[in-house]
């Protein structure tokens, strides 16, 4: 059978392979190479070694955005997961209207980041206007504005995943614990949380990478203002490419660093949480 299928390689694999090469492989390889070059378009690249990377170290805005993004990611991962888990716990208690609530909380995920950014800009600027401030008054407002926006968007998504995790816990397990005299806190600590560990793994992974890669919402809500102080990594890289001529190489080097950070986080996080999962 393997041989018969193999003959159909051009039909089965070639279309995807070509698109994958154009859309992913070639840009990636070229991107890594160009991070060591000086260029304005791809064709005039000149190899210059590590000096793009050296320039990054002196780029205060980039270091600020790195710090800003890291802080933002930590805050959102914690808050989103805590809220999503709490809401999921309550919504699995068989209360009336569960389906409607679930529908409402999930809805923001279907609306794109750009649209959401402008929706919240209206609301938050409206509230801040009472205090004669705007979202771009200081980076603090931008930071918490983005946190609120991300909470609003992602709690629903993570909640859905947690709900399915909680519903998959066998009823006997909870009953057995209750018969053994476990109280509510113990039940949560020793039964529910270990049993939904796979969901926790997935949700932390998703919120981590979403936080780190955030772009659209950042662009629409504050556009980095005031003076690049609320600029996150992805937006900083974007403006290095398209806002400063002659800095394309530096932008590409930043992108490589960005990729390495995201990759390392993904690997570490995967190792850490999967080791805590319960074997079923």
């Amino acid at each position, binding site marked *: 059978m393997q041989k018969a299928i193999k003959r159909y390689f051009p039909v089965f694999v070639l279309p995807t392979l070509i698109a994958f090469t*154009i859309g*992913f492989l070639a840009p990636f390889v070229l991107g890594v190479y160009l991070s060591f070059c000086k260029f304005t378009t791809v064709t005039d690249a000149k190899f210059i070694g590590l000096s793009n990377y050296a320039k990054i170290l002196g780029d205060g805005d980039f270091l600020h955005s790195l710090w800003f993004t890291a802080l933002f990611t930590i805050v959102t991962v914690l808050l989103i997961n805590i809220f999503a888990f709490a809401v999921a716990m309550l919504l699995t208690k068989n209360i009336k*209207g569960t389906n409607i609530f679930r529908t409402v909380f999930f809805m923001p995920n279907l609306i*794109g980041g750009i649209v959401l950014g402008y929706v919240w800009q209206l609301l938050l*600027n409206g509230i801040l206007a009472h205090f004669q401030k705007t979202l771009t008054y200081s980076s603090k407002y931008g930071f918490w504005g983005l946190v609120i926006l991300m909470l609003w968007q992602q709690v629903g998504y993570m909640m*859905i995943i947690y709900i399915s995790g909680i519903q998959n816990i066998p009823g006997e397990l909870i009953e057995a614990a209750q018969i053994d005299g476990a109280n509510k806190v113990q039940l949560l600590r020793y039964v529910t949380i270990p049993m939904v560990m796979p*969901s926790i793994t997935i*949700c932390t992974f998703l919120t981590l*990478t979403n936080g780190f890669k955030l772009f659209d919402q950042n662009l629409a809500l504050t556009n980095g203002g005031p003076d690049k102080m609320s600029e996150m990594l992805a937006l900083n890289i974007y403006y290095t490419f398209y806002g400063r001529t002659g800095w394309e190489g530096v932008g*590409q080097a930043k992108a490589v660093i960005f990729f390495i950070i995201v990759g390392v986080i993904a690997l570490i996080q995967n190792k850490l949480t999967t080791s805590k999962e319960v074997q079923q």
Partner: protein
Amino acid sequence: MNKKVKHGTLLTVIFTLLSLLYLYPIILVFINSFKKKVYISKAPFEIPTGKMYVGLENYIRGIKQTRLIQAFGWSLFITILSVAVIILCCSMCAWYICRVKTKFTKILYMLCLFAMIVPFQMEMFTLSKIANMLHMGNPWGLVVIYLGFGAGLSVFMFTGFMKSIPLEIEEAAMIDGCTPIQTFFRIVLPIAKPTCVTVTILQAMWIWNDYLLPSLVLDQRKYKTVPMAVQYLKGGYGSVDMGAMMGTLVLAIVPIIIFYLFCQRYIIEGVVAGAVKG
């Protein structure tokens, strides 16, 4: 028992209030879309009455300035075609990877896993240049790029499912004289339908809302997608026409919500299934 019922009612009330609060930002935009533009940033929380009320003026201006109708058309075209192509090509590729065990397929599979963690910024500049060189700055070219970029996740999800299909079914079909292509379309693809639904939902949500990739690749003078049309209103550094912005936002949100209300079961199931495998 009585206490439990009361407890439940209290939670229902709390969640009802919370849901209303959750919907409030969208309701606020809706209210403001009927307001004269100078009042939108001055009095965003007031109901448009008397001289504030402008009827559908904001919507008309929004549609005209952004050419929103065309943007909708292109967004629909790009999303539907991309998802269809992704489903077809990636499921075929995934089956090949599952059934033909060579070094090549192993490497291809590893590359797909790898592609899932690479952030778009890493590819952004080079991809837009390559697309430009290959004259792919049109919706058709964009579909090819989406196939390439979406292949990672889709192939991964399809292989995850197809590994579990018993080999005997396919072997029986082949012995009965099916070619691999017939076997795939008559046996494998129908079995993999749940994965098709999941992949469709995840990819459609991503492609419909994607802003950065199309804005870099497409020739903006000719083609715009909905997120690009919204961002276009922001323009350079000039002041934003808040009226047109509100109208456009409402028009961008409403169709999605209607679509969501009709297909929410599939969407939520798709997200759960996608998360479990991802």
